[in-house]
């Protein structure tokens, strides 16, 4: 197996582990809710009345978790198709939203908020390698998570920069490090090295704004 294949499999492995963990949480909630309904049904009919509301709540919980699971399955299915084509047309803002919903849990585990944003009313179409784009975004996120403390926020903003489509990765937070500490930490992280290599494969330029906690991925 060559290095590129290993890297891609490792990326898919982390994404799959993350999403299947979420699925197990959904199944655990459904299992307990169904179990509670079963417990209530096992009570004598005369004593069951006081549990009616709880029974109905459990039913609603199951429906809500099924919906959560179906949405997650759809998002993951779309992600699983990213290697289908080496080149495809994507709308950048919508792709950022999809990426953030897939990876939000990585940030949540560190008490960090992740969100996608776009310049108002601006639709940015790009033709690119979808898999490499998702990998580049993932390494960007991973690098930021390795240096930011809890309660910070990471925003992925689709934008135009010098006539090119770009993703601005902007970090904020009261406890956030100084720009110097931030960039030193990023460059020391394993994810940053992967980011540089993958960005080069994607023909994307990585531009750091050293006055602030942000950097750009310029997609050429």
């Amino acid at each position, binding site marked *: 197996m060559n290095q590129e294949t290993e890297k891609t499999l490792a990326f898919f492995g982390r994404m799959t582990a993350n999403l*299947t963990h979420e699925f*197990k949480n959904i199944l*655990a909630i459904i299992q*307990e809710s169904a179990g*509670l309904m079963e417990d209530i049904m096992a009570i004598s009919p005369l004593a069951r009345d006081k549990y009616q509301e709880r029974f109905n709540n459990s039913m609603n*919980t199951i429906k809500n978790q099924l919906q959560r699971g179906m949405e997650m399955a759809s998002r993951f299915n779309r992600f699983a198709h990213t290697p289908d084509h080496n080149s495809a047309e994507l709308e950048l803002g919508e792709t950022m939203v999809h990426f953030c919903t897939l990876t939000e849990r990585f940030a949540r585990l*560190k008490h960090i908020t992740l969100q996608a944003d776009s310049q108002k009313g601006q639709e940015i179409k790009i033709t690119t390698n979808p898999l490499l784009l998702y990998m580049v975004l993932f390494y960007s996120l991973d690098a930021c998570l390795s240096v930011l403390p809890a309660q910070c926020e990471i925003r992925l903003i689709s934008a135009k920069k010098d006539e090119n489509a770009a993703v601005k990765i902007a970090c904020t937070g009261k406890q956030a490090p100084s720009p110097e500490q931030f960039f030193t930490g990023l460059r020391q992280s394993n994810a940053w090295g992967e980011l540089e290599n993958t960005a080069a494969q994607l023909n994307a330029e990585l531009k750091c704004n050293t006055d602030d906690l942000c950097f750009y991925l310029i997609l050429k």
Partner: protein
Amino acid sequence: MNDSIKVLLVDDEEEFVTTLAERLEMREFDPSIATSGDQALSMVQDKGFDLIVLDLMMPGIGGLEVMKQIKSVNPDMPIILLTGQGSTKEGMEGMNQGAFDFLMKPLDIEELISQIHEALGKTSA
């Protein structure tokens, strides 16, 4: 036989932990819930729990770190870990660090109760 057993359930999935608590309550346990490691640590200081059921992967302080901090103050506190991972690796690691046992999610409540009784040296009904 369960009404004196005070169990702290710790998991960031609130609906899961609330429903599990209700089911244990229907079986005459005395459960309390915490939805984060920080909350669990503050509750453990104040209340005399007999046993803790602790999720391994939570935002902020993870299950293993929570267990470590609890064990540093109360080394005899029995802790049963919950894991959403597909492998037993993390659960085994937890046992090496002092957990009584671990259970995989989604869990079987009868198995949990059996583990609780075993950890407290009681015979299952």
